């Protein structure tokens, strides 16, 4: 976002001979501490003996330059700048009598410690990154042969379970079948179909019973066959397909097809 500006232009005295210019490019830094660390490196002294005062001044100059360039600075850079300006004034002014707050020296030492810590972890991160990475430098077996787990099922069942299952199941099933017999019926549809077949080749009177004999082999079927057959007969009489006759009460029922008009004429 920012147009790089040679650090030299801002503070020419800070630049060592032959060293590449430090650019005012906040994008390149990961926060104010990182910027401070970079500035500290420029002092070319052990971080243990760094001049925090000089460092604070450089930081403030850098920020001032960036602001003059109208660079957008993240708030934490400004917070650090404010704090360093405060620290700088404390370091320059004579130390007030011992109070509650930590002394300027203590604050400076704490900052130096933080910088040393960051530098140390940077070095550690670098060492870690330089190790042989699995999958980059060293490799595991590319085609591992998995352990095959053979599952051997062992079934559990007791004789009690077996007998209980058998007895209950048979009992239930047989009870269910008995009730099924009771519902056996010769439906009206069955009766109608049977009668229509009869009508097809019938010319003379015939007793209904004689025709139904074959459907009443089982005694249990007799009531339902008779009832359905009679209903179907009456239905066909109404449609004009059959004539029905009964000589007296409880006498056999006679049926005969109604002659077709065409046949009658012939």
């Amino acid at each position, binding site marked *: 976002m920012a147009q790089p500006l040679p650090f030299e232009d801002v503070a020419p005295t800070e630049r060592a001979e032959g060293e590449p210019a430090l650019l005012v490019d906040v994008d390149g830094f990961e926060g104010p501490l990182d910027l401070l660390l970079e500035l500290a490196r420029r002092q070319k002294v052990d971080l243990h003996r760094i001049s925090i005062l000089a460092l604070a001044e450089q930081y403030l100059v850098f920020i001032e330059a960036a602001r003059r360039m109208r660079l957008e600075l993240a708030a934490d850079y400004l917070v650090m700048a404010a704090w360093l300006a405060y620290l700088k004034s404390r370091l320059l002014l004579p130390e007030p009598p011992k109070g509650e707050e930590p002394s300027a020296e203590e604050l400076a030492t704490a900052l130096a410690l933080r910088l040393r810590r960051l530098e140390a972890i940077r070095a550690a991160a670098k060492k870690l990154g330089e190790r042989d990475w699995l999958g980059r430098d060293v490799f595991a*077996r590319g*085609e591992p042969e998995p352990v095959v787990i053979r599952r051997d099922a*062992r*079934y*559990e069942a007791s004789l009690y379970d077996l007998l209980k*299952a058998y007895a209950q*199941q*048979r009992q239930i*099933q047989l*009870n269910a079948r008995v009730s099924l017999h009771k519902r056996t019926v010769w439906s009206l549809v069955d009766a109608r179909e049977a009668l229509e077949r009869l009508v097809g080749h019938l010319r003379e009177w015939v007793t209904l019973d004689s025709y139904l004999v074959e459907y009443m082999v089982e005694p249990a079927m007799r009531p339902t066959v008779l009832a359905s057959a009679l209903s179907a007969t009456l239905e066909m009489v109404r449609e004009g397909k059959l004539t029905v006759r009964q000589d007296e009460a409880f006498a056999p029922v006679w049926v005969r097809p109604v002659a077709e008009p065409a046949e009658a004429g012939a």
Partner: protein
Amino acid sequence: METTDETIEAGIPDESRVPDHGEATRVAEALLFASAEPLSVQDLTGRLPEGADVERILEDLAGYYAPRGVNLVRVAGKWAFRTASDLSFVLSRDVVEQRKLSRAAMETLAIVAYHQPVTRAEIEEIRGVATSKGTLDTLLETGWIRLRGRRKAPGRPVTYGTTAGFLDHFGLDAIDDLPGLEELKGAGFLEGRVPPDLSVPVPSDDNTLREDEDPLDDDLFQPLDMDQTETGEE
């Protein structure tokens, strides 16, 4: 190693042109180990220092690993490390799982036990419901039932019976130690209204085929009397 090409191009006959056989072997070994699939001689040639004798390296490695727990073997014309075949057992692990039989399986087993030899259709008739393929498979897997033969009837359905393992598991001395109707009643297995036409057969697991049974022999490929083949079960 990397500079071999240049050396050759430069036309300088140099000892260093012959790549170190030991070092090339190490590289081949690492490549074969790390590769997710078998490598061909061509694959290796492209990755080893120029001039490496790939065939000899593979021979050396194969010979070297031959007596070890891992062998270098040829698979479909390519090379790969594989567990020595005599050690394949170390790569498998047996796990015994306790499983309970489903109610359907338990009923089917009981019907096979009492009514054997019995066909699947007969089992279904007695139970009043269709028996799933899995149920008979499971029972066959337990080793408690077996295919006896084929019923001499349309479709020649398979007949099932129980095994010695069945007797063993249920602590029976013989199959006719299974309790009959009166004993089932007496022991309280049958309660409430016992249907009048309930009869319990005297079971027999005699190996001899009955008169209405044929041996299985002729069509071993579909012994399960089902549509699925054995490949489905492994």
